[in-house]
């Protein structure tokens, strides 16, 4: 229909005017949503996460049958709980056990009577179910109201209610499993046996009731009717409802979580009704709820492999959150006066606005400090103070009886806030390069390595569980008590060092009906998100010495154990404090993790073996082997290199009188001077160099640029300029050497045949063993090169010189080098230095990524180091100019940065331009192809993405089990040829990821060393460049520039087949034997073996052997 319309309009040359309805839709999409396309994407997303119509009938059919069956289950006369358990055990059904177990001599009895009422409740009942992460089954909550007659007034005591409920559930389970052809399980959310439900799943191929098409499972939840004999007032948070026989705990301790859990059984129907009301009142509620759940599910607040502690089966919280936002606060009179109330949201908001409001609330609300009481109809049922004193986090629902967050640790809420903040940042910066919608709803954030600055994998199986019985009873299980204790201790110990701490555990699995207890969790992951301003603080201050005996001081000492000590500080204070001693910057970056380790060790007896991280293995990747460092006998590092650079600048400036022109500027353009070199630069003094074996001798030359004052004395001829530079260098070299004893200066002329190019450099070799190479920047060169390239620009030429094509080509090459080296390199250097100062984790990230790329044989030959530095800035800058280090999405550790860059590279569409605003000093200066003009080409990018995919998969899969080194090991199977080089002659070999120390120790014993040091000499790239230019159309070469001892190559596919002979074919060919005289043209074929022989000859002294992987 639409098609026809548009054709008609085209014919008449006029567009059909819009109807008012359409117009409003379009306007709304733009105004009420992020943008028109955002709205469309939301519309496209929603149906995919909602239940489909298919299979509904079968499900309803089953539910009716189930109901009919359940109300006709015969009653069972009262029995003592233990006897009842035994009866059921004989039938293979366990009664979910709740702590404390009933004593053998209890007076009360358990019994069964058919449920009074059976309802579909929860999100399915309201038709707002949202697909879950795992198994993608919707859960249909079926509440079965237990008759009041089964309960007595005192059943709130000692878990009697839960025992009765468990028994009820077990009887239902036994009866249903025999009557229906379905799979039955027990499921205890959060491992809490008090929350056990019965799960029914359609069995595949079941004859009678197959509702698998509806992708649902039925959760049977026994509930309490509102008119039950249990008095709600006995269940207020402050009441103590469990009596523990042991003497270790105080006789009367409040049991807020226990009480809350009983109350949860009373309100299923009420919640259903109120959500229904809300759905009717707010037109956008359904969509907003769905968006919120999808957002939360993607971040682990729900089910999943690694879900955030406390959010399992907390569907009612999300609905409650929206209800709170639309109803507003209930008045709370506190001591400090009446708290400021939140204004309820308007009813006409769009789903997106509602979603954003929810995020806004989550991001800004401090759950640890301010309680939330949803507006009720008849005021508080329970005094709010009771909640405030007994629950750490409070979010009380509209019935004023239930606190959604009673068993959610504060750490998880911190994380929720943090995630909300991050998403809001993305939404408010829609212009960012990445796809906001996908980041928000489509991408799963389960890759913990890219989500947290540090990840600690803790094995709890050996943890000492010294929690008191009362805490275990309160939390429902020993695991829950342990996790709650870990969470609160870590939160106190880390304080403001972290923005959020995540305790992640796998979702509690369903268990067969025969097992009474939920399996315990042994492995958890603790994720930390640092606050960069405080994370690496060296000292934690406690209370001062005067109040030694106060509670605060006691708590401080309890928290830190023997680490807490009284210290006097420079300002005269004497305080309790904990000092973290570090020697290197790597160690400093580990402080937060060491705190976690210390606390786990102190309070739970978990040694480092049980709490593992990836930090140290990652650090090791960037360090040279120990014996290499010993042999070098020097301490390097970027700081030392910068000091050496300053020294050189100072001595250059001191020469002022001896130079014909004054030196204006010396600009560094090297990664060694901007903290982004993979290895810390090491100086090698000439004296030591002679003793070192060849494979340890690599000394990087650090390029710098000299800028002199302007002068009219320069000749107006490119070749002459280069010669003048030579003369300049000679003067500088002579006077430098005479003024600095120990310093050596020489001039590298560069064997280029390009007459326009300024290859010459002044090489300065300082007494401490640093090597610099200086270039002179003369801005007239650019104009002169321009004139050669484009004679049209020369209006009147001073001489009638004509330039031929060859010279123009050479000039173009020279010009490219000129702009790169003199214009862009200093600018790039400044931008990167800025980034390093602004983001503490940036330099580490770049170093890791460079190492990784080099290890996969792509760095330098295919991807320039500058391009990588720019790509690595992406997770930090994120396409926004105003981002600061405290922004939620910015990584604060190099491991996370590395993981984020890998993620980006995995789906990097290199055809799409990547826009970053790095060059802040001059935003108009864009150099799109400056650092990528020499690659990567399609093959290299393809490989790059494949490696990134592998690596991020490996990082994610094994989380922490994995050996980090395997990420950096390169498989050579897919190369056609591998050229094995002789490691003893490679000066960089010691940087190899698999460097074998025998190479340099053996060499040292033999004493084969050349006396003259050659700073910067590295034959591998020279050989590689020669191979690349010689066989550019035949082979593609790859090698590890950091100490690689192999070169891999693949035959270019275009030369695979025989082809007719041509004189200028550009490859080494061999003639083919003629088979058919009549038709054949003179065919030739690529002479592969001869090429390999040639490579061997070109690399005499370097090549050990050539391994061919492919049948010739």
């Amino acid at each position, binding site marked *: 229909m639409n098609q026809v319309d548009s054709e008609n309009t085209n014919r008449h040359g006029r567009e059909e005017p819009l109807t008012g309805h359409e117009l409003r839709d379009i306007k709304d999409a733009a105004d009420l949503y992020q943008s028109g396309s955002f709205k*469309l994407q939301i519309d*496209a997303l929603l149906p995919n996460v909602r239940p489909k119509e298919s299979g509904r009938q079968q499900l309803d059919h089953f539910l009716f049958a189930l109901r009919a069956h359940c109300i006709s289950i015969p009653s069972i006369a009262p029995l003592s709980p233990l006897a009842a358990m035994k009866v059921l055990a004989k039938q293979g059904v366990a009664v979910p056990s709740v702590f404390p177990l009933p004593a053998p001599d209890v007076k009360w009895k358990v019994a069964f009577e058919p449920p009074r009422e059976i309802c579909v409740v929860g999100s399915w009942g309201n038709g707002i179910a949202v697909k879950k992460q795992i198994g993608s089954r919707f859960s249909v909550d079926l509440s079965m109201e237990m008759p009041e007659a089964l309960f007595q007034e005192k059943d709130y005591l000692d878990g009697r209610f839960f025992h009765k409920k468990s028994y009820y559930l077990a009887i239902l389970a036994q009866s249903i499993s025999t009557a229906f052809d379905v799979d039955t399980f027990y499921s205890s959310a959060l491992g809490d046996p008090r929350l056990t439900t019965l799960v029914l799943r359609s069995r595949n191929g079941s004859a009678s009731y197959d509702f698998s098409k509806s992708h649902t499972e039925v959760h049977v939840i026994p509930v309490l009717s509102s008119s039950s004999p249990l008095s709600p007032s006995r269940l207020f948070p402050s009441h103590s409802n469990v009596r523990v026989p042991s003497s270790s705990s105080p006789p009367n301790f409040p049991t807020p979580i226990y009480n809350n859990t009983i109350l949860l059984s009373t309100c299923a129907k009420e919640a259903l009704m109120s959500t229904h009301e809300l759905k009717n009142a707010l037109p956008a509620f359904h969509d907003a709820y769905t968006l919120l759940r999808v957002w939360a599910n993607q971040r682990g607040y729900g089910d999943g492999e690694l879900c955030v502690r406390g959010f399992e089966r907390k569907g009612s919280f999300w609905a409650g959150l929206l209800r709170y936002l639309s109803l507003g606060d209930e008045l709370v009179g506190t001591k400090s006066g009446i708290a400021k109330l939140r204004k309820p949201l308007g009813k006409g908001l769009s789903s997106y606005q509602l979603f954003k409001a929810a995020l806004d609330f989550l991001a800004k609300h401090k759950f640890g400090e301010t309680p939330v009481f949803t507006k009720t109809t008849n005021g508080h049922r329970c005094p709010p103070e009771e909640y405030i004193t007994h629950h750490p986090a409070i979010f009380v629902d509209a019935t004023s009886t239930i606190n959604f967050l009673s068993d959610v640790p504060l750490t998880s809420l911190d994380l929720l806030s943090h995630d909300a903040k991050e998403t809001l940042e993305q939404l408010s910066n829609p212009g960012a390069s990445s796809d906001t919608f996908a980041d928000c709803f489509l991408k799963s954030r389960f890759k913990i390595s890219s989500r947290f600055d540090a990840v600690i994998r803790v094995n709890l199986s050996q943890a000492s569980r010294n929690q008191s019985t009362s805490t275990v009873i309160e939390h429902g299980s020993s695991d829950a008590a342990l996790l709650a204790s870990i969470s609160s201790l870590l939160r106190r110990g880390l304080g403001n060092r972290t923005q959020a701490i995540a305790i992640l555990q796998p979702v509690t699995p369903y268990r067969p009906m025969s097992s009474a207890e939920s399996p315990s969790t042994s492995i958890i992951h603790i994720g930390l998100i640092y606050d960069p301003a405080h994370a690496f603080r060296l000292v934690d201050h406690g209370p001062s010495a005067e109040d030694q005996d106060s509670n605060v001081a006691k708590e401080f000492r309890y928290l830190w154990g023997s680490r807490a000590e009284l210290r006097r500080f420079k300002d005269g204070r004497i305080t309790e404090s904990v000092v973290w001693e570090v020697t290197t910057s790597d160690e400093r970056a580990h402080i937060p993790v060491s705190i976690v380790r210390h606390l786990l060790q102190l309070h739970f007896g978990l040694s480092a073996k049980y709490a593992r991280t990836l930090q140290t293995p990652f650090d090791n990747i960037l360090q040279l082997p120990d014996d290499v460092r010993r042999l070098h006998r020097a301490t390097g590092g970027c700081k030392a290199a910068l000091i050496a650079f300053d020294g050189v600048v100072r001595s250059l400036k001191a020469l002022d009188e001896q130079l014909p022109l004054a030196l204006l500027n010396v600009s560094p353009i090297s990664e060694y001077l901007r903290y982004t070199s993979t290895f810390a630069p090491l100086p090698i003094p000439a004296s030591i160099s002679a003793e070192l074996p060849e494979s340890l001798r690599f000394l990087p030359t650090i390029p710098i640029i000299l800028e002199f004052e302007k002068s009219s004395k320069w*000749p107006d001829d490119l070749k002459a300029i280069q010669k003048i530079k030579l003369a300049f260098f000679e003067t500088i070299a002579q006077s430098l050497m005479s003024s600095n004893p120990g310093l050596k200066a020489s001039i590298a002329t560069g064997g280029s045949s390009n007459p326009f190019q300024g290859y010459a450099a002044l090489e300065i070799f300082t007494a401490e063993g640093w090597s610099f190479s200086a270039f002179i920047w003369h801005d007239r060169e650019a104009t002169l090169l321009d004139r050669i390239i484009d004679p049209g620009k020369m209006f009147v030429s001073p001489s009638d010189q004509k330039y031929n094509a060859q010279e123009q080509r050479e000039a173009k090459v020279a010009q490219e080098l000129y702009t790169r080296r003199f214009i862009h390199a200093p600018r790039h250097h400044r931008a990167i230095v800025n980034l390093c100062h602004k983001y503490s984790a940036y330099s580490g990230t770049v170093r890791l990524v460079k190492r990784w790329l080099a290890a996969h044989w792509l760095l330098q030959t295919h991807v320039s180091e500058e391009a990588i530095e720019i790509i690595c800035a992406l997770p930090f800058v994120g396409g926004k100019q105003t981002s600061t280090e405290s922004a939620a999405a910015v990584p604060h550790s190099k491991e996370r940065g590395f993981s984020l860059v890998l993620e980006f590279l995995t789906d990097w569409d290199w055809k799409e331009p990547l826009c970053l605003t790095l060059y802040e000093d001059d935003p108009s200066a864009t150099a799109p192809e400056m650092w990528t003009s020499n690659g990567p080409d399609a093959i290299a990018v393809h490989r790059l993405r494949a490696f990134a995919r592998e690596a991020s998969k490996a990082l994610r899969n094994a989380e922490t089990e994995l050996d980090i080194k395997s990420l950096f090991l390169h498989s050579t199977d897919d190369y056609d040829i591998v050229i094995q080089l002789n490691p003893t002659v490679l000066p960089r070999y010691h940087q190899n990821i698999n460097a074998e120390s025998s190479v340099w120790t053996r060499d040292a014993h033999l004493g084969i060393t050349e006396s003259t040091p050659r700073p910067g000499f590295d034959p591998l790239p020279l050989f590689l460049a020669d191979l690349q*230019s010689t066989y550019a159309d035949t082979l593609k070469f790859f090698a590890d520039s950091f100490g690689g001892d192999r070169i891999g190559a693949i035959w270019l596919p275009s030369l695979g087949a025989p082809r007719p002979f041509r004189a200028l074919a550009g*490859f080494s060919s061999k003639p083919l034997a003629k088979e058919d005289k009549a038709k054949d043209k003179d065919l030739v074929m690529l002479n592969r073996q001869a090429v390999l022989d040639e490579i061997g000859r070109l690399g005499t002294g370097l090549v050990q052997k050539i391994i061919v992987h492919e049948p010739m």
Partner: protein
Amino acid sequence: MPVLPKRLSGFTVIPIAYPSSSHFIYARAHTPPKSKTLKSKNVLPEGRTLFLVNVPPDATEHELTLLFKDCGTVERVLFDFNSADAPEEYASDSDEEMDEAAEEFDTEARPRKKRKLQTSEPTPPKVISLPSPSLRTLRKTGSCAHLIFLDSSSLAKALSPPTSPKPWPSSEEPRGLSHYMAKYDNERPPLDTIKAHADSFMECFEFDLSKSKQEAKYRKGEAIVDEDGFTLVTRGGAYGQTLGGGVGVASKKFMLTGQIGGRKKKDKKKEKDAFYAFQKAEKQRKVILDMKNNFEADKQRIEKLKESRRFKPY
């Protein structure tokens, strides 16, 4: 092993024995293109020039000379002499090109040549060149070379198919690691050599400059008049005179773009575009239509994404 052809499209196949294979060089007598000027014929004399295809990339002149030693004495080898590439260039200054090819490292060849051509009285200073020891130059694989024999009888010998593969000769230029080391050392000559080189070059440059000034058509103070008799008005030197070799009077922007400055742009639109009611209506309509079009475009984009199953979050 099948018998390999001895000849291929008019080329003689010369097998070269490598350690574990054979390399093949294809040879043919050089036939100069007809349209060539005399000069290029002088460079590659017909009758005694051998055209070689698929020369090993690291071959030196000496090695090729050795390879064809038994055919006769080789006068000269030219690598990658490609006359089809840029005919004009080579026609005009092939002499120079040839010398450059021969003396790879002597970048000063050009100025010296120019000077030689101009027969002048004052003896010019001599450029002391930087040391250039014999190092290999690598060329692209499968490239070609012209080999000029001293005697034309050698050509026939070279073209007769050899009976057995010849071994690849080796000259004394270093290879591989020692080549790179030698190159590294060679690129860092002693300081005094550099000084001498730079000074003498500049002397020579000054000399050339002063001489070209003397010979230049235009002198200071004289107007520049082109062939058609037009006087070029240039921006004044010191005293507003038109000077030879000065910078053009036109603005830089004009020189680069050929467009005259921005005064025109400032001209305001005289007509208001929202004066009449119909203009306003049109405008509004346009806004709405644009909106609709954008919306439709978005819709299509999302449809496409939908097809790629993008909207299944998990």
